[in-house]
């Protein structure tokens, strides 16, 4: 179960002996199980998107789906067992570290969230099947049943993160705190990765990085997570760690997918690809994350309103500074190689000069590119980021108190 070490039996500041370690593993296994579940879901999703961009045809039993479903099964079974065990046969410490659900059932908060997420993923399957029959097969990614599915996936990842968080916040010695802090950091990275994958259609391609739309979306969505997780983490450089893990996982996905031979199985094929189409190169989130860490460390837990204005402004400012020129590079021939995986497109795309152009430019009243329109758009992006940062600070403060 989720308790790292029973609070009543802990002594602070002692080194973890081998028996302590074994006991920790024995009691912490659900935390690792749901971390594996959360990770397989996001990896499965990245693979699934690549599958649709490369091969097209899939089944309920396609490998990426199995990975995602496997995540749901691991999450549901491990947390379901944990809830039943704690309720009916839990030790005193296990019960002490849980919350009551409907006045009877007992389990850590994160376990309940994971169970809820699993049920959401299960319910989305017949709904999605009906949707396909009614409106067509995956006409768009953003459909009602897909959002139910995504809610379930994100819930499992949030649950995994909460389980690690509760254990981290209960830890009484530095060794446990560090170990569980790393687990929390990894589970937080999974969520940031998931969020970035969800917004990938609108905010990931280099072609989008010179329009304010890109900064509005990233400014609205990313700071809330990055800042909340940074505040709740007990490690140093928390946001930077999360951003680096996000980037590494996506880069490894890019490299691995490119190695896999695959061809489209559906018509029409306008772009005859021969290898799995990888996701676009990750956003350079380490840059704003680094500044977030520095600023948050300086401010501590005080003056959150001022802090959110600074963080929101710095986030968008850094994103613009970094991605404005990075985009130019990604669209250049220098990025069209294995490492960056640029200029690799879906089999359904009719290739043309649009590949090397900037999209979603901010236009003035005359329909021409306009610096004024861009400036207004970026100002709106900053406003979004400030609100997002403020929510993140509040959420992070709440999360840092979670102990069960």
């Amino acid at each position, binding site marked *: 179960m989720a308790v790292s070490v029973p609070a009543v039996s802990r002594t602070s500041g002692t080194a973890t002996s081998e028996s302590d370690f074994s006991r920790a593993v024995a009691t912490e296994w659900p935390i690792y199980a749901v971390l594996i579940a959360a990770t397989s879901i996001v990896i499965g999703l990245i693979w699934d998107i690549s599958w649709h961009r490369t091969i097209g045809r899939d089944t309920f039993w396609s490998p990426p789906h199995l990975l995602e479903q496997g995540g749901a099964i691991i999450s549901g079974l491990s947390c379901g067992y944990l809830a039943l065990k704690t309720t009916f046969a839990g030790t005193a410490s296990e019960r002490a570290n849980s919350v009551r659900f409907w006045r009877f059932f007992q389990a850590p908060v994160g376990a309940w969230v994971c169970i809820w997420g699993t049920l959401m993923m299960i319910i989305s399957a017949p709904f999605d099947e009906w949707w396909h029959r*009614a409106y067509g097969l995956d006409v768009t990614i953003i459909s*009602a049943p897909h959002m139910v599915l995504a809610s379930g996936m994100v819930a499992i990842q949030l649950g995994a993160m909460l389980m690690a968080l509760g254990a981290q916040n209960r830890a009484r010695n530095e060794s446990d705190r560090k170990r569980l802090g790393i687990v929390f950091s990894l589970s937080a990275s999974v969520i940031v990765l998931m969020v970035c994958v969800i917004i990938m259609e609108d905010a990931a391609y280099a072609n989008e990085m010179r329009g304010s739309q890109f900064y509005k979306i990233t400014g609205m969505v990313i700071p809330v997570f990055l800042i909340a997780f940074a505040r709740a983490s007990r490690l140093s450089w928390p946001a930077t760690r999360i951003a680096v893990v996000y980037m590494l996982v996506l880069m490894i996905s890019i490299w691995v997918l490119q190695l896999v031979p695959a061809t489209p199985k*559906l018509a029409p094929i306008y772009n005859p690809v021969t290898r799995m189409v990888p996701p676009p190169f990750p956003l350079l989130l380490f840059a704003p994350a680094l500044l977030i860490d520095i600023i948050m460390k300086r401010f501590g837990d005080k003056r959150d309103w001022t802090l959110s204005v600074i963080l929101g402004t710095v986030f968008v400012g850094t994103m613009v500074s970094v991605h404005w020129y990075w985009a130019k590079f990604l669209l250049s021939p220098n990025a069209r190689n294995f490492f960056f995986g640029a200029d690799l497109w879906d089999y359904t795309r009719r290739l043309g000069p649009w590949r090397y152009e900037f999209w979603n430019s901010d236009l003035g009243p005359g329909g021409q590119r306009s610096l004024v329109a861009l400036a207004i758009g970026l100002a709106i992006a900053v406003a979004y980021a400030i609100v997002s940062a403020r929510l993140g600070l509040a959420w992070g403060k709440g999360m840092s108190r979670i102990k069960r």
Partner: protein
Amino acid sequence: MIRTFVRTLSVAVVYLIASGHVGSPDTWFEGNAGPYPVTVQIQTAGVVPGVARVFVRVAGDRPASVTIQGNKFDAQGAAPPPEPTEPVASDPGLYAGKIWIMTGGSNSVTVNVTGPRGNGSVVIPVVAVAFSRYPLSTPMVIGLSVLGVFLCVGLISIVGAAIREGSLDPGQPPSDRSRKRARFAMGLTSVILGLLVFGGAKWWQSDDDNYEKNMYKPLASAATIETRDGIPMVNVSITDSVWRHRNDASWLQQHDANAWTPLVEDHGKLMHVFLISEDMSSFAHVHPDSKDSIDFPARLPPLPGGRYRVFGDVVHESGFTHTLVSALDIPATLQLPAGTADPDDSWLIGLKPNEGSTAALEDGSTIEWERPKKFVAGNPGALRFVVKNADGSPASLEPYMGMAGHAVVARADGAVFVHLHPMGTISMASQMAYVMRTAEDSVRGRLGKRVSEAEMSAMSHAAIHSNVVSFPYAFPREGPYRVWVQVKRGGKVLTAAFDANVSAAVESGS
């Protein structure tokens, strides 16, 4: 609002106009895949993207394999790999498979047969459009609602538990303050969830409205009577604004519309127009000319006054086929002299119901329908006709627009209309467009010109060696139907009509 929405969705699957024909969505083909005679039925899903079911019947030699391959008319990158089919255990010679059709419009299915006589293939045009509405069944509504309520209540409870006890030290009981905060959080979560469910329902409704709006509708058209040089004409005019602006790129972009490809001649005609009186007693098949592909005037045959359903079959260069639907009132007082502007025009008036199997043709010959004892919707093989001389000997037939015969099937209420040839429901021009298309055919009109020339050449060499005319088809729905069969003898087009009462298909669950 949700009840209205559910009721809207709970209607049975409604077949609206299925492109190429009316209320008859399946594609039928009979011909040869190399040395193998095949009959192919393609059932599209009614939504796009969707999975089409393909049935291939191979006559004669048992093939080693039958594969099917989907494609889109303008896909120049590559073709997807062929899909296998499986023999249907209960029906020797029949093979079944599935093809994913991902984009709407002009698609094709290529059937490949491998057997003792080598390999053979044939390409069959398929029009893929969204034409059906799938019901949300009551058990599904109840199931989703119950689970939805359970999950909402579950989430509210989790939030309550988290706020009440989540931040307490292990073992510490919740205080009154934390209970109060939990109740507030649960209330707030309920409001947020309510808003999300409300927003989700609005979103779903909006998606449904958009789907309904984008369901296939033929190009809007109108039929009017005009007099030209003193001769009454029926003018079928394509009034659809998208068609009228088909060459105006900026208009199309503003209206988020795709440009139609030009029309091509099918059997040497740009449009086949059928006028069927509402009581189905009068029928005409005429062929207008057009200078602008907007107005299609044809000489009006001597039809009696009354209200007529007007169906205009056209083929686009992409291979997409349309049946334009309109109506025409012919005044009883209108004097319509006999005579034709096009030698392939034909009509039959004053028909009485004919539930029998034989009909007399104008030249004294007869046409006999080898009708089954009972007509059941979905059962193929019902349209086979034998033409005999007056003395009962086999009659010789001439090609009528390149074919042994043409047939029109219409349901009494006009909900079903289909124009058939011995090769099935597909258009010959559409099939040729697929076969002849090359990578250089990006210039509009270039392919259409070649298709017309090739079709005219094929028609000029056509010869009919049998007095049997059959049309691969199955009545799509139950109801009273009339079937008009047209053959050509002695340079004259002869038309016969039959009636059939079709009963509903028995659900096999397959």
